[in-house]
């Protein structure tokens, strides 16, 4: 395997996640797409420090930090979605327009 193959997989995953983030209207589906983009960044960091970097364990540290932050972000986001659903009975982003003038 070459570095370019890993980077191509990461770019494809990133594009897929970006598509889902723009196109979906369900908040949970948008969160899933965001997690896919974060995972693609982890792949790129890991592949770059393995094949082209100075110290291979730095990519490991970056990917683990990304995983930790993503877990915290998921917990907060999902609890917010539950509260939003309780108050507006919908988690569709196009219906969350109460602040629109």
């Amino acid at each position, binding site marked *: 395997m070459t570095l370019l193959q890993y980077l191509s997989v990461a770019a494809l995953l990133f594009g897929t996640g970006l598509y889902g983030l723009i196109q979906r209207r369900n908040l949970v589906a948008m969160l899933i797409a965001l997690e896919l983009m974060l995972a693609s960044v982890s792949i790129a960091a890991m592949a770059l420090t393995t*094949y082209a970097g100075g110290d291979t*364990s730095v990519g490991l540290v970056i990917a683990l930090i990304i995983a930790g932050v993503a877990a915290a972000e998921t917990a907060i986001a999902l609890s917010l979605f539950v509260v939003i659903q309780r108050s507006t009975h919908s988690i569709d982003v196009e219906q969350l327009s109460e602040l629109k003038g």
Partner: protein
Amino acid sequence: MTWGSAVFVVSTVTALLGALAAVGMRNIFHNILGFAVAMLGVSGLFLTLGADFLALVFILVYVGAVAIVMVYAVMLSQPLDQPPRPRSLLKIFGSALVAGFGGLAVWGVLRSAPWHPRGAPLRDSASAAGFRFLTDYVLAFELISVLLVVAMMGAVMITRRRAPAEGR
């Protein structure tokens, strides 16, 4: 074809098909299952990079925790019996265009940068990560711990139903 490249191909196909299911299917429950499959594929990619500890962490955190919590949130929030609203074709084309350009831009930047290839696969990744986290990156490590505790307490506080006397 060696074992390493076979694992790479299988993991790539799994990750990409799972990602397509995670963003493409209509049912939110199928999206979550596709996300779990995609994360299994990403873990396989980490295995081919020699980062076995990271692969296990990704399976534990994403397939084991995040996907399950998402299922819980969907059960608490999404009315699955309602028929989905029709998708607008214009939005699908627009987002495919933007995502295609975005992915191509990322790929172009990554491809054109002058990396210096150097083959030294990672050995003993768990102890390497532990050593790094307790020496050079100890501040990041502690901040992640604080962040996780705060996020856990915050999630409980946000979703807690208030007593009727307090009002909502």
